[in-house]
């Protein structure tokens, strides 16, 4: 089998459920590495994952994963794909090692190999000492790790993780993200993780596919999409004698053709544009004219959030 150019390739994929268009003419190319599939709840992330796994046929369009057609070569494809579902419910009375071993076997590992690989995978995710505990007695964080272990135990080429940090506290979330990054870096396993938290995608992903209401907002390498200095974050205070001065600053900057992210009534705004110097000048002039008091101005790097903001506006 020739090495595919893209890990996942989709062309004109739409998915319609009754009157609801879950995915709308989606075309994307996902290269190797860790890819973040981002979007709000209901944006079509899980639907896209089920199409990638071959569990649903798209209404229109075609998909290729690891060079295979998920609909016609689904069994062959899924033997090489690990999947961690969002749903966090597993057989309560089953020890973690049996659970991971069983799924490794179902994904094609010989029985003896499955046992050792299950153990290795559980050690890798930090549950080596806990591997004989029943799943029902484990914490949410441990169960998320078990989901990751079962997804990687059969040595997949690609792992799909649906909201892998769901329900985790900040420390557990950090640990999970480090693990996911490690799996890709140390073992050359491509990962696509879905998340509605842009910050965690920015932390560990090489590539991004951003969806909004079933439409593609952005795709590409994360460092090409975000990261450049391209604006300022301004925090202002209102002087009682000049009510509405902050809103006036925002209005003036918008009138100058800048992209201003500011909710009326709030003291903070992000001002985006092509040139940081021009933005800084415009902000200075707008503040001076409106009579607002400056609390903080700092350079701002472009974030994933901006892509969504730009797409909506």
């Amino acid at each position, binding site marked *: 089998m020739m090495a595919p150019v893209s890990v996942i390739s989709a062309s004109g994929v739409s998915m319609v459920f009754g009157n609801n268009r879950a995915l709308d003419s989606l075309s994307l190319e996902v290269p190797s590495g860790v890819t973040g599939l981002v979007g709000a709840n209901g944006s079509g992330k899980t639907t896209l994952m089920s199409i990638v796994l071959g569990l649903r046929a798209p209404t229109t369009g075609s998909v290729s994963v690891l060079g295979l057609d998920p609909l016609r070569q689904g069994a062959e494809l899924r033997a090489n794909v690990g999947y961690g*579902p969002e749903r966090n419910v597993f*057989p309560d009375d089953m020890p973690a090692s*049996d659970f991971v071993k069983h799924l490794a076997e179902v994904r094609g590992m*010989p029985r003896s*190999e499955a046992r050792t690989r299950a153990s290795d995978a559980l050690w890798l995710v930090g549950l080596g000492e806990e591997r004989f505990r029943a799943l029902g007695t484990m914490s949410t964080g441990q169960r998320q790790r078990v989901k990751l272990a079962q997804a990687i135990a059969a040595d997949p080429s690609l792992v799909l993780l649906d909201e892998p940090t769901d329900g985790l506290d900040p420390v557990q979330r950090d640990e999970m993200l480090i693990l996911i990054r490690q799996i890709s870096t140390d*073992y050359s396993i491509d990962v696509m993780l879905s998340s509605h938290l842009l910050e965690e995608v920015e932390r560990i992903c090489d590539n991004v596919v951003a969806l909004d209401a079933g439409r593609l907002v952005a795709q590409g390498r994360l460092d090409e999409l975000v990261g450049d200095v391209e604006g300022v974050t301004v925090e202002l205070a209102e002087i009682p004698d000049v009510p509405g001065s902050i809103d006036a600053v925002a209005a003036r900057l918008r009138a100058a053709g800048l992209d201003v992210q500011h909710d009326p009534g709030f003291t903070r705004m992000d001002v985006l544009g092509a040139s940081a110097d021009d933005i800084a000048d415009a902000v200075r002039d707008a503040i001076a004219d409106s009579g607002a008091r400056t609390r903080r101005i700092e350079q701002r790097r472009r974030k994933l959030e901006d892509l969504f903001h730009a797409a909506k506006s």
Partner: protein
Amino acid sequence: MTAEGNAQILDRGYRKFDGQRSGVWGAVRSTAWHSTRSVLGLGRKARHKIAPVLVIVVALIPAIVYVGVAALVGGDEFINDILEGVIPDFSALPRGSLAAIALFTGLVAPEALVRDRRDGMLSLYLSTPLTRITYMAAKLLSVGGLMAMVVLVPTLFYLFGMTFAGLGPEGFGDWASVLVKILVSGTLASLVYALVSMAAASVTDRRAFASLSVILVMLGVLTVVQILVEGAELSINWRLLDPVNMPMEMIARIFGDAGEYPALATERIYLANAGWVTASSTMLWWRYRKAGA
């Protein structure tokens, strides 16, 4: 150099797999075995083992009793003649376990199917080489195999027991013929019971309700048919709708016996069983066509 001198601790850690994967059949086999273990309570707490083991033992009791009696008092030609008039034919033995079989249908299919739907395993299975159809094939293999433990295994035990007691079929040809008939009829009947109970269990994600649903289909239809034929004195062909007795009738007809309802034509009995298989398979396909996506 001593063995201790050579000792090393090897940390293999997570590594790549270069071997041959077992493919779809491996996935089916593994899922079926896992499901069978789960139903029998293997690897689970003792309380999960009680009901299935009890029902299997109850299903074996008639065969054990007959074989025991034959082994204890048989041997003499005169007594053997008497015994042959008392002990059931190979085709009739499974009827002695009918209550256990009906009870087992309400136990096995709900445990095999409902757990996966309820605890999210189904969506995980469908992310493996299994498809909905091969997943159902694995479950059928498991449920059918378990049903065979109460439909087929007692008759097999009966055959071997009677053979050792000197009351088995005479000559190797007859003996082999009976063995084949037991295997074929037992497998087909187990398949019918498995599919009917799986279809009935597929209507809900609650195990207790699934058991109730299976019992309702098996015993409910049996009761209605009984009322129609015995009470309302309608045509005996209504008995063809009975999912409990028709597999038993099929076993009898495969052995060439008249069975419990000689008035029913053999072809109709085969058709009735085929009808239950078709209806149950359709129901399962319909219930699982979008499940787990």
